[in-house]
């Protein structure tokens, strides 16, 4: 009978992604609740050090698959290897991050293993040995509780939501036999943002601008820089060509869950609210005191963002001293 929990980690260029630490930490909680073992799996090449790092989060075992063919993520290679490992170990639950990689992988792996997937979950609840997954749907307008039937359950967790918990263990590091198999895709180039641009889905703080900016993001960027925040945008700002698509927060953009979301000159269209409603604290700044954004905010300032935002930047400077 299937038992045990697998946490599939994700690394890029030899660095574990934050969501992987969330997946292993959550995997530890689920495994403890089920009275089962947790195995963390890491794929890549030249990744010996990562196994040591993963010990901090308390897996019972760490499986390392080190192969030059795994230097970059490809759907085929990862699916081939992971499906092989899963068929061998027969775990009951697989946890991975709902990142670009996890979203690409989960459906393929599930089809190969004929398993159900709970995608982009914000909570995992354990009750009498059965798991219920909480996941936003309709871009967050609705929150569903779902359960998965079958011997294997795959759950992809929303980045930046679940806690990272250190619980160091002297985990056994093993290198299971694994076949890369047939690979029909190849990564031929990677272009990563240079400098210290913070990824929206991983940011602790996001300062976002909408139509009210009129396309001038200087004050938004200044506040973001002072806060160490990522800069986001509403759909209308992206449609106007003021910001790249990758900055868009909303139902047809990114869904974000920062600790603090500062919405500047964003009226609060329903599809935007859907993308940021799981933020812990929401601050709204808008000229129109009746704007819908205020109904979803914790704190609001009715005023012109070009006055308010620079004033906030000054105050943040003072506080940070």
């Amino acid at each position, binding site marked *: 009978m299937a038992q045990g929990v697998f946490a599939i980690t994700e690394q890029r260029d030899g660095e574990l992604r934050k969501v992987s630490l969330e997946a292993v930490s959550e995997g530890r909680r689920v495994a403890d609740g089920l009275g089962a073992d947790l195995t963390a799996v890491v794929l890549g090449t030249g990744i010996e050090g990562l196994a040591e790092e993963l010990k901090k989060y308390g897996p019972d075992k760490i499986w390392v698959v080190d192969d030059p063919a795994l230097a970059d993520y490809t759907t085929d290679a990862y699916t081939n290897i992971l499906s092989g490992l899963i068929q061998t170990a027969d775990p009951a639950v697989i946890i991975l991050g709902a990142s*670009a990689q996890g979203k690409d*992988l989960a459906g393929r792996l599930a089809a190969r293993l004929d398993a159900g997937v709970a995608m982009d979950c914000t909570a995992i609840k354990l009750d009498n040995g059965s798991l219920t997954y909480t996941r936003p749907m309709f871009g967050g307008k609705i929150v569903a509780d779902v*359960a998965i039937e079958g011997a294997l359950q795959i759950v992809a967790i929303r980045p930046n939501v679940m806690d990272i918990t250190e619980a160091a263990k002297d985990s056994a590091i093993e290198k299971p036999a694994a076949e890369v198999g047939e690979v029909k895709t190849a990564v031929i180039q990677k272009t990563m*943002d240079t400098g210290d641009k913070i990824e929206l889905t991983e940011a602790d703080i996001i300062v976002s601008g909408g139509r009210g900016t009129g396309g001038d993001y200087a004050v938004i960027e200044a506040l973001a820089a002072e806060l160490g925040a990522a800069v986001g945008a509403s759909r209308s700002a992206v449609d106007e060509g003021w910001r790249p698509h990758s900055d868009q927060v909303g139902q047809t953009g990114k869904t974000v869950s920062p*600790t603090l979301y500062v919405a500047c000159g964003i009226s609060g269209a329903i599809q935007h609210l859907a993308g940021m409603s799981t933020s812990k604290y929401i601050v709204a700044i808008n000229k129109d005191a009746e704007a819908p954004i*205020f109904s979803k905010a914790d704190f609001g300032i009715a005023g012109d963002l070009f*006055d308010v935002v620079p004033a906030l930047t000054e105050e943040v400077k003072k506080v940070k001293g």
Partner: protein
Amino acid sequence: MDIVVLVKQVPDTEALVQIADDGVSIKTQDIKWTMNPYDELAVEEALQIKEAQGGTVTILTLGPDKAIEAIRTALAMGADQGVHINDPAAQGSDSLATAKLLAAALKDIPYDLIIAGHRAVDEDNYQVASAVAELLGIPQVSMVNKAEIAEGKITCHRTVEGGTVVVEASLPALFTTQRGLNEPRYASLPGIMKAKKKPVDVKTVADLGVDAAMVGAANRKVKIKALNLPPERQAVKMIEGEATADKAAALVKILHEETKII
């Protein structure tokens, strides 16, 4: 180049979605339905490839009677034909069952390339396209904002956190769309008139040779236990003050002391 586009009809993103009395589904009446926005990008991309290289564009959807509207919209944009899997037994299928039905239909449709949205903005499952590619045994590339086809290969710019990865795959292949790929065209009036005469093939679960015990709401692996509205926030605290600087100071003080973020 024969291209199949996977399309789904979904509630408009501006629609207010309400939970039905059963507590596990949404009220489908009184809301505006539309083609999934990411699928519009897929249709547009297929049409642009066809215009450049020739071939056919087939629209494949799974849905109830009204889902024909999404097919007609795509045909009005310029697609050639539609296949509509329409069977009460298939209603409420989860992602994997949906993929099995679509993959079964694709056995009878010639294709070199399949294009789909990276997710449907209703259940936000991000799985159907990947599962279809797996069931067909073809490579996939997800969340693509630029695609080029040459010499039996497709080169896709795939968006990932903090950058872009260029992935090459041999055809036949499947890729999913991301915003930035193109600007979908509107259907023209002559296009809408022509669409009415374009062929749409209707398929049942039995036609596709799929076991009815694997599909439909009753056979979901992913069971919806309950739908809830997101927790309401406390009423907004508006920061008042004489001058802007006072309000800013008050807000930063709260964020610093109460929320401990700054």
